[in-house]
């Protein structure tokens, strides 16, 4: 983007703009595009979800407005805009007003580090992953504000639940990403994506694997367990079934959104769907190689890159389109899974949710961090770090040993943990009564 703006300003119009003006303009343009993309994603996702879940329930879903109901979300948005904005008399007016903004703004920030295609990352921060999660944690403040300012018991209860849930599930999410970060040795999202070239085996682990763009993390045991744990945590972060407790309509009406109407409610809705999109996207990025896929790397190699400054620009476009297609396809596939889960499961109770996060997911991800260390040891370390004994196995052999070891550890951990957790959860009636034995009568 910088190059294009620079070319237009300084070469075509010969304005002689300073470097920072050029970068400001180019960043603003990118930001505008992303800012427009976010609501469109929300509009599309609501439609997509409603049609999908309807099909899962043997229904048809909205199909009246526009072809196949395509404009249903637009109609909903218009309705949302034109509704009366209600502020409860006892509410804290300013906080009530600010809360939706505080919730929406971070989700917009998070777009800054998403890689849409090769060379199409808005900002390649070297701490991109950390940025993503740091920013996502801000919206918890907004939820708290919304719940408190509404002056409603249901709102406050919902906000407390939402915040407790978000804060709790950030830990397993971070821990499962820690395993990936240990393997790549970088927090940069671009590096993580780059690492996932290969064919079922990453070419970064084993040199000489053909790079078809399929060396995703999910294909190794560490990555798979991390993926499962992360996706579950993402469901909780995005308040999706079975963790949609903060807005459990059968219990606390609509949680922190109870006292919101019209556009402010629309903003919450926007934030939620955009967050869901982002969580699906980041899952696709970290575990499924974002834009990686057959053909993208080859096309990109022919385009203009830092290594190959005199390539053909059209190949950049082609690689970008293909990469963005792969990326969005994976993202929507994850959203499909979210909807699928929503279609299949009831929701947990709030104490069960906390138990699940703290007593099951966190230990499991801790074991996975241990596995990741083994993986890194076998694949990346040499004699210097004390892994000289593995050298004679060769790259592939070391990979295989690491694979078998981590697979065994992870499966064992999964079964043992599930058993222990399951036993503690399944308090039979007799045990429940035995628990009363010590009670004062």
């Amino acid at each position, binding site marked *: 983007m910088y190059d294009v703006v620079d070319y237009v300003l300084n070469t075509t119009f010969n304005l002689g703009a*300073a470097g*920072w003006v050029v970068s400001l303009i180019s960043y603003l343009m990118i930001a505008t595009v992303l800012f427009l993309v976010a609501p469109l994603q929300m509009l599309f996702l609501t439609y997509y979800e409603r049609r999908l879940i309807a099909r899962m329930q043997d229904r048809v879903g909205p199909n009246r407005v526009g072809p196949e109901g395509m404009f249903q979300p637009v109609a909903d948005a218009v309705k949302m805009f034109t509704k009366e904005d209600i502020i409860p008399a006892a509410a*804290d007016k300013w*906080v009530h007003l600010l809360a939706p903004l505080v919730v929406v703004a971070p989700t917009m920030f998070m777009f800054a580090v998403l890689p849409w295609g090769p060379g199409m990352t808005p900002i390649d*921060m*070297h*701490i991109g992953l*950390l*940025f993503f*999660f*740091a*920013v996502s*944690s*801000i919206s*918890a*403040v907004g939820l*708290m*504000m919304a719940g*408190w300012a509404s002056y409603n018991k249901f709102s*406050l209860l919902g906000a*407390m639940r939402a*915040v407790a849930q978000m*804060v709790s599930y*950030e830990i397993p999410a971070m821990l499962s990403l820690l395993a990936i970060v240990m393997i790549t040795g970088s*927090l940069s999202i671009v590096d993580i994506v780059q690492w996932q070239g290969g064919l079922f085996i990453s070419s970064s682990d084993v040199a000489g694997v053909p790079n078809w763009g399929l060396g995703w993390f999910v294909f190794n045991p560490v990555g798979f367990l991390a993926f499962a744990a992360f996706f579950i945590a993402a469901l909780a972060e995005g308040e999706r079934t079975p963790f949609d407790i903060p807005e459990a309509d059968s219990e606390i009406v609509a949680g922190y959104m109870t006292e919101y109407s019209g556009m402010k409610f629309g903003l919450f809705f926007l934030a939620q769907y955009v967050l869901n999109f982002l969580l699906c996207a980041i899952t696709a990025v970290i575990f499924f190689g974002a834009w990686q896929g057959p053909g993208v790397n080859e096309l990109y190699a022919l385009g203009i890159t830092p290594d190959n400054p005199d390539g053909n620009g059209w190949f950049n476009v082609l690689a970008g389109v293909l990469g963005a297609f792969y990326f969005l396809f994976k993202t929507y596939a994850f959203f499909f899974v979210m909807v699928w889960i929503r279609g299949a499961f009831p929701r947990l109770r709030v104490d069960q949710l906390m138990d699940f996060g703290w007593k099951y997911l966190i230990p499991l991800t801790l074991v996975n961090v241990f596995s990741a260390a083994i993986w890194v040891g076998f694949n990346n370390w040499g004699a210097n770090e004390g892994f000289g004994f593995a050298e004679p196995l060769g790259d592939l052999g070391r990979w295989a040993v690491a694979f078998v070891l981590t697979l065994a550890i992870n499966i064992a951990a999964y079964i043992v943990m599930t058993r222990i957790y399951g036993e503690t959860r399944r308090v039979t*009636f007799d045990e*429940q*009564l035995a*628990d*009363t034995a010590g*009670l004062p*009568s």
Partner: protein
Amino acid sequence: MELLIQIIFFLLAALILGAGVMVVAVRNIIHSALWLIGSFFGVGALYLLLEAEFLAVVQVLVYVGAVSILILFAIMLTRDVSGQGERLLFQRWWLALLVAITLFAAVITPTLLAQSWNVVPPTGPIEPGQPTGIAGALELGRGFVHEFLLHFEIAGVLLLVALIGAIVIAFEERNRRRKVLTLAEEHELRKRREQTSDANASESALSAPGHPISQSE
């Protein structure tokens, strides 16, 4: 470029200080906490301006994402937050003000007048093994497992101790907690009491005569 940075700096300074003043001046403790979050955010942005990206992100993650949430939780769990009809400050708040202003004067005078801070970053030939440029996350990570390993471990232990300590302090002992008996538990207890007093009357109602269902075991 420089002007832009200066403008940004002043805006940030205004945010940090203004929000800080609001933190101590606002009556409603929730508003106070929200202003505190604003101040934290300003500090985080200042870190970004100072090119400490990692610290900026950690600031947001820890302060905005965790500490402020903790504070908000603590406020909501403790009391009515409006603060209406109560004294906001101690009776001798002017003393505190005096101390603060004196300290500020004492610190700032030598800073601005006596010392020349016109420091030039060390340039010159870079020795082999010395880092180049501005240290980032990578160098920090290296540092934590080499140079500052002990410090890092101590920080970890500190956090663990704080975690356990917080739980121990805030934990309500089991027998002090209110236990609401469910119907089944209550019934079981009553049954046991009856059993101890009258060993005979413990059969369930099923075997009572006159039950409509004739049953054979």
